[in-house]
């Protein structure tokens, strides 16, 4: 856990917020805090009070368990998706940037193909072909986020691959796999950290966007994107529909983002030079 030590205060705050959210999601799904998220329990659009701490939604369901479940769904979905994206993009980007040649060309073109599909159209096609729901959302997020990350990892890997320390390792007889794992990967890790957290926010956005267009998680399951999408229109009449999930979502992405930036800085052992 030594890496935590090197983080700055902002990143630690981000990490704390994330931990809090994960805790809340677990409380909701495992401990059943707030009751069943899909049960119609009260009047529609009731404001927060003792009985429904966060109010009720447009079907008269308590918002508390829905928000908690939404955190769980969204975090899990995007985390899994980003893990997949990060792994895939890193592998592909390393191959394209380090190996180069026709293999790299093929990888890049393959990624370009995905890239070439307009984001939402791609997501919708995936949802339409796979049938909407979690797996389609997951696949969409991955397909949408892989290209950018792959390209950026490629750019970073390309530069690293020309450095003398890679040459040295190769002279030592290091396998390409060794070089990739020990030299190139750590040197692109900052990029992966930044892009990974970016992908996470894109993932959340795609999830929400799909919900917005009706291709997201299936009702009555709850996700932050779906909650926000459905609550958006009630901004004035029943603000609690939008405010809770909105705040949580923004907090989550913000936490992830500052944490990612902090991680990136942490992964850079050299001092940055103040230009002053």
């Amino acid at each position, binding site marked *: 856990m030594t890496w935590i030590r090197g983080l700055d205060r902002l990143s630690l705050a981000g990490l704390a917020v994330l931990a809090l959210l994960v805790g809340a999601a677990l409380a909701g799904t495992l401990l059943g805090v707030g009751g069943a998220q*899909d*049960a*119609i329990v009260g009047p*529609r*659009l009731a404001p927060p009070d003792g009985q429904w701490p966060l109010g009720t939604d*447009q*079907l*008269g369901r308590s918002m508390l368990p829905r928000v908690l479940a939404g955190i769980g769904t969204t975090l899990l979905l995007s985390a899994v998706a980003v893990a997949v994206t990060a792994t895939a993009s890193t592998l592909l980007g390393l191959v394209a940037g380090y190996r180069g040649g026709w293999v790299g060309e093929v990888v890049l073109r393959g990624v370009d193909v995905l890239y070439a599909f307009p984001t939402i159209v791609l997501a*919708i096609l995936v*949802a*339409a072909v796979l*049938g*909407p*729901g979690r797996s389609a959302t997951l696949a969409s997020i991955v397909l949408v986020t892989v290209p950018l990350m792959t390209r950026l990892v490629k750019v970073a890997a390309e530069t690293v691959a020309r450095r003398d320390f890679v040459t040295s390792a190769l002279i030592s007889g290091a396998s390409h796999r060794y070089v990739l794992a020990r030299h190139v990967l750590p040197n692109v890790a900052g990029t992966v950290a930044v892009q990974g957290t970016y992908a996470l926010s894109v993932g959340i956005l795609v999830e929400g966007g799909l919900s917005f*267009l*009706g*291709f997201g998680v*299936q*009702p*009555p399951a709850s996700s932050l994107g779906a909650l926000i999408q459905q609550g*958006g*229109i*009630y901004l*004035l*009449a029943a603000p609690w529909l939008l405010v809770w999930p909105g705040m949580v979502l923004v907090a989550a992405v913000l936490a992830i983002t500052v944490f990612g930036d902090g991680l990136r800085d942490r992964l850079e052992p050299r001092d940055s030079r103040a230009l002053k």
Partner: protein
Amino acid sequence: PTVTPVAPGLLAIADPAAPPGGVLELQIPIDTGAASGLDPQLADVAVSWQLMSLVYETLVVIGPGFRIEPGLAVSWETPSPTEYVFHLREGVTFANGRPMDAADVVGSLERLLAGPGVWATQVGPVASVAAVDDRTVRVVLDRPYTPFLAALANTPAAVLPMREIAAGTVDPATTMLGTGPFVAEFHRQDVLWRFARRPGYWAPARPAADKIIVSIVPQESTRIAALQNQSADFAVLGNVDAPQLLAGVRGVVALPQATTDFYYLMLNNNAPGGKFADPRVRTAVNIAMDRTQIAAVATAGLGTPTGVTPAGLPDACDPAALPSATADLDEARRLLAEAGATDLSFTLTAFSTEPAPAVAQVIQQNLARIGVRVTIQQLDEGSWAGAVYGEVPARFDAALSWFAGYADAGMVAQWWKPEQAQFNIGFMAPDAGLTAAVDTALAAPEGPGRPVALRELCAAVDRDAQMIPLVTRPVVVGYRADAVSPTVFATEGYGNVLRRAADFRVLGR
């Protein structure tokens, strides 16, 4: 939320004192989009009827409270239950200036009946159409068919310029040439329609507005916003809470308009695993439906429970008296046990347009009460249609949709006859008793016998439970009272909020 009508059957009446002229900015969620083009006879969705009704007119029209009123026919007689004689209005011309005559009427009806359009079914068992003279048309039916006039009042039965069509100078699929108050000046698919006042319209001083600009705005919140910031004068809203959402906005009126359209639940007789082949299972599901809750929760109380005769239409049956409504949940559980389906679980396929997902979720909760687990599958309309209508036999478990309820209590029941409504054949097994009940109801003449026949019909549909009517589908009509003075019906049968568009007055801001 209830709105007190300003007159029987009307939520608002255009102020005749307001000066004529002006441009009306209107927003609706979707455009006509039929591959068949602009031919009104092939139009089968309400939005097409609505837009085309600005250009085309019918012999008779629907008035407040579903009264049949004169349209292009000034009057009519029914010498016998199977005979209708229409006297055409004088001075009616098509937009190209040619006067309309009986040949146009006869030709239009014959074309409709011979064509592939679905409305031919609704117009009924027409035996012959003939021009008695230049101003008189006689229609003979095979057997009594009470909804005949109501069916004639809808856009697909509009009078087309048959002479031009026959001569090939006008293709109704691409050109709109009617007798109506407006002409379509411009159309860009999914973006905009521009209708302009037609000089030479038969009714004096109408239409009041110079222009109607119809923007297609799929996003509900955008339409609401447009009303707020005055970029739209009039908008059709789908969100059931729209009246509440617009409550505080100065100048904006949001009227919940009842319609006869209603949501219904399809239980696929051919469902994989034979889940719904047993009528007892279907009945159990039907019993578990809490229509009151669906109406209260999913439609915010704007919709009402309904049987197959749409609530709100004259003579419609009382949904509370349906067999399923009077049975209790224990009965449902017992039926399930009898059918050996105690751990029933199925997928409910719904499209994603609000409030369908809400209805599906209440259904899910309803069924949980009798231990049935429902998984909701929310699809885009294309995939939904593919899943429900794409294959025969159909492979979905259950699906949610809505029918337009039309302007007569018996009409929609036609779709409960799969031999006639071909699209149902994939999931619905024909039932002779049900078919007979439908035919009886359709033939029952106005009078005390008709409610009885319709009640019978409702019960038959309820027992059959292959397509279970649930609640009516409301819309909200929003407009800026400082910009327009419209006429709004309290209940619509053909989803036509522009029914009296010629009366709408544009107010100077």
